[in-house]
């Protein structure tokens, strides 16, 4: 089975090590009864969607609304928290609980929510400016803590809401309102950044490929811990067409490196090989030493292999790995915090317990 872009789809049960030996991402979240199913409509709010015509955010919204019923969770136990940006308007359009917060802070806010409410499925919606510029610190810390959050980063390589300034993912030389002579900033690669923070789940997908996007969302939802999903998103107003080459079937076939667990990594006639120093390069399949061809292993303990794959990106989109880079099981921050509390507790806290706490160890009594 392949998706619209010709990306092979993984079967839902083949996501690295997630779910094999431990909880899934939605364990503890109340599920719908067997006789109840929700539909896309149930997740559509009554608010008028106000993105520009043709904005990639529409298709992502449709994909998410279409995907959520599949989770089988009670709608009231799903929460979307966003920052600020065009993309961050997303929660208003979903009929779940939601918070449109402040610029860059959604991962921090969602961390407090997820830590105190194991019965919620918590999603973060953020943009390239929101997540990587003003909120960069919160993003890397949420990832390193491995809070059970699903973070969807809409990367349009531009500041949309503020009308077209370059962003931390804009390429060097990009001409925007605030870089009339071309940007001299070097961009972040969001996947490399997330892997550098040792994120336990990192994936990349694209707005226009609904099936691939849905497949990645499914894998992310199943992952317990932080999941960072970078979604290439077209902004037709301020940065139109930056990902177009990946949407053309022939171009895509030559450029997209499909990351599929257990399969060789390659695009078109080329495969990726690893040399003695661990460096990756492309060689024609026919010339490749079969023992050196990289076989994708998202469950690898060490993030280095996934990181090396993420470095195969090139600014001209000559090679773009897509799919799940990393998917490993690690203890999560929120589970750990709750376990410490549970292990310390000796039952319901009574007034007498609080009285004893207030008294401490050194008290004295003054008679009447």
């Amino acid at each position, binding site marked *: 089975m392949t998706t619209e872009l010709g990306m092979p789809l993984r079967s839902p049960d083949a996501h690295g090590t997630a779910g094999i030996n431990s909880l899934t991402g939605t364990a503890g979240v*109340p599920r719908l009864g067997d006789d109840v199913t929700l539909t896309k409509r149930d997740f559509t*709010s009554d*608010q008028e969607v106000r993105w520009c015509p043709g904005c990639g955010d529409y298709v992502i919204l449709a994909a998410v609304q279409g995907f959520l019923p599949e989770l089988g969770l*009670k*709608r*009231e*136990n*799903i*929460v979307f*928290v966003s920052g*600020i940006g065009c993309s961050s308007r997303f*929660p*208003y359009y979903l*009929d*779940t*609980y*939601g*918070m*449109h*917060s*402040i610029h860059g*802070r959604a991962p*921090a*806010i*969602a*961390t*407090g*929510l*997820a*830590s*105190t*409410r194991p*019965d*919620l499925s918590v999603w973060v919606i953020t943009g390239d400016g929101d997540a990587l510029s003003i909120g960069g*610190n*919160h993003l890397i*810390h949420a990832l390193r803590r491995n809070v059970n959050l699903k973070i969807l980063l809409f990367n349009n390589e531009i500041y949309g809401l503020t009308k077209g300034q370059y962003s931390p993912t804009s390429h060097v030389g990009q001409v925007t309102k605030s870089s009339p002579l071309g940007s001299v900033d070097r961009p972040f690669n969001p996947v490399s950044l997330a892997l550098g923070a040792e994120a336990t789940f990192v994936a990349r997908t694209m707005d226009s490929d609904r099936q691939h996007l849905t497949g990645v969302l499914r894998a992310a939802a199943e992952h317990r811990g932080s999941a960072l999903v970078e979604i290439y998103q077209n902004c037709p107003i301020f940065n139109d067409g930056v990902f177009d080459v990946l949407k053309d079937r022939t171009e895509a076939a030559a450029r997209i490196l499909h990351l599929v667990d257990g399969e060789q990594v390659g695009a078109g006639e080329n495969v990726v090989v690893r040399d003695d120093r661990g460096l990756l390069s492309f060689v024609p399949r026919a010339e490749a030493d079969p023992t050196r061809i990289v076989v994708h292993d998202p469950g690898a303990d060490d993030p280095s292999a996934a990181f090396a794959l993420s470095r195969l990106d090139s600014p001209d989109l000559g090679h773009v790995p897509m799919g799940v880079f990393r998917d490993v099981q690690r203890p999560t921050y929120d589970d750990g*915090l709750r376990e*410490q*509390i549970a292990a*310390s*507790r*000796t039952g319901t*806290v009574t*007034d*007498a*317990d*609080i*009285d004893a*706490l*207030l*008294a*401490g160890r*050194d*008290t*004295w*009594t*003054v*008679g*009447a």
Partner: protein
Amino acid sequence: MSTKLVQQLDRVVIRFAGDSGDGMQLTGDRFTSETALLGNDLSTLPNFPAEIRAPQGTLPGVSSFQLHFADHSVLTPGDAPDVLVAMNPAALKANLSDLPRGATIIVNTDEFSKRNLSKVGYTISPLDDGSLESWHVHPVALTSIAVESLAAFTELSRKEKERAKNMFALGLLSWLYTRPTDGTEAFLKSKFADKPDILEANLTALRAGFNYGETTEDFSVSYEVAPATMDAGTYRNVTGNVALSLGLVAAAHRAGLPLFLGSYPITPASDILHTLAGLKRYGVATMQAEDEIAGVGAALGASFGGALGVTTTSGPGLALKAETIGLAVSLELPLVVCDIQRGGPSTGLPTKTEQADLLQALFGRNGESPVAVVAPSTPSDCFDIAVEAVRIATTYRTPVIVLSDGYLANGSEPWKLPKTSELPDITVEFATEPNGVDAKGAPVFHPYLRDPDTLARPWAIPGTPGLEHRVGGIEKADITGNISYDPDNHDHMTRLRQAKIDGIADTIAPLSVDDPTGDAEVLVLGWGSTYGPIAAAVRVARASGVKVAQAHLRHLNPFPANTGEVLRAYERVIVPEMNLGQLAMLLRAKYLVDVESHTSVRGLPFQSGELADVITAAVTSVSNEPLKESAT
């Protein structure tokens, strides 16, 4: 052994001073515990450098702990010590100017080496040049006698033995003021449970110090301070930071909410994080965030989910939290923000006290962004103020800023333990049902439909079926909470948010005035940690026949409803503050009363003697011209 004289005293102020590494804070703490158990009323003031270990033996490295205890009620740690324990030349030099002539100095002569003297600029030892003639000096070779007492501990190095000198000093002072040492022995036993030789050495040094006092010729008199008459009840000694922590836990318990603290370490607030981190067994969750913004963000996220979200910080951190507090104003969710103020601006004086964040708390956000602001007046009041902050936050669904400060945070006093079951009932009810109908008559949930009394909106937490809704920082339409850019709606919502905060005044106690003769013409009005020094000053002034009224604000926003009336009832109103007149500015603006500011920003609490002079001068000149703005 000679039988020594025992003399009765009604009050004593002792200051322990030494190098940061000398353990003066611990010595002071232990002496305080012994004193509390004896039933004296007391108040303490630790004073330490921002550097963990400034160069040894230097003036910046001096750390001190002052304790005032008495057979009557005590309001401050005392203006000036009666006794200074100086562990080295730096400690002597740094503290001598605070010491009135005639006071006692117990000095560790072992540290008065040429090298140590020159570190602080003494060319001749002040012990030898007669410069200390106006004080009672007890030169004691504290270090060498302590080391000698440990001669049997052959396995300990000289350095380790020297470290016990603070316990020797504590033993000596305990003898001098007839304090029991059992509490300290028990404390040491639990502290060094797994280091038996260190434990024995400390116990030996402590007892040696006590015995030294009893046997040495140098101390011919010991003192007793009788217990103070205090209300019947069970007491403990408590610092402001511990009281605040306990208040948050007790209030969350009373509210029936899990407590979530998101915090980033900063002096002098970190102890609250430390204390709460150790209370997991009461269901308290603490998160050490990556920065202050994340700390308050996580707290707000927890509040959105139905927990009591709390964040603790100091002035620089409050600045970073401003945008998120503004979001909480807009979301109308409970949030408690504790600012343990310190000297500013910028990094300022991290370990010193100040009250200069009042205007930041009230106005330090973009837009019309009203929040409730409360301030504790004493260390133990930090408990009550925490409960009050939680009451306001949960009842009115609003951020509440608590303005404590370094003086209250680290200072301590006896605290009569409250009964948990008698704390205010602040049980919270979450929304469970739709509260409106749509155009077709179907039930819907309006997240911004307000309670008519409090103007609070419903708290509908995720997981509640049928109440799914979105909130955010964009202006919301009244009632529905949908995004709205409508001019009239924004005007209406801005006024509603303000009215909600103003309405809190309906549920707070009126400002009460202490005016024993009932005909005072001058009022001294303070807020926050200046309570003790002001009350002590008022006591001094009244003792000399001066008629003065005193009132103290614990609510800074909104003010108690009768505040204007109180201000207008006096000829003159003096407002002492540890800033350049922030409360005075608010009172003048709001009530058009020409209050007079008396300010000091030395990083230290007011001296009550100095305030008493200000009060006396004001009262004497009441019919004459008003005080000029005065500063110290």
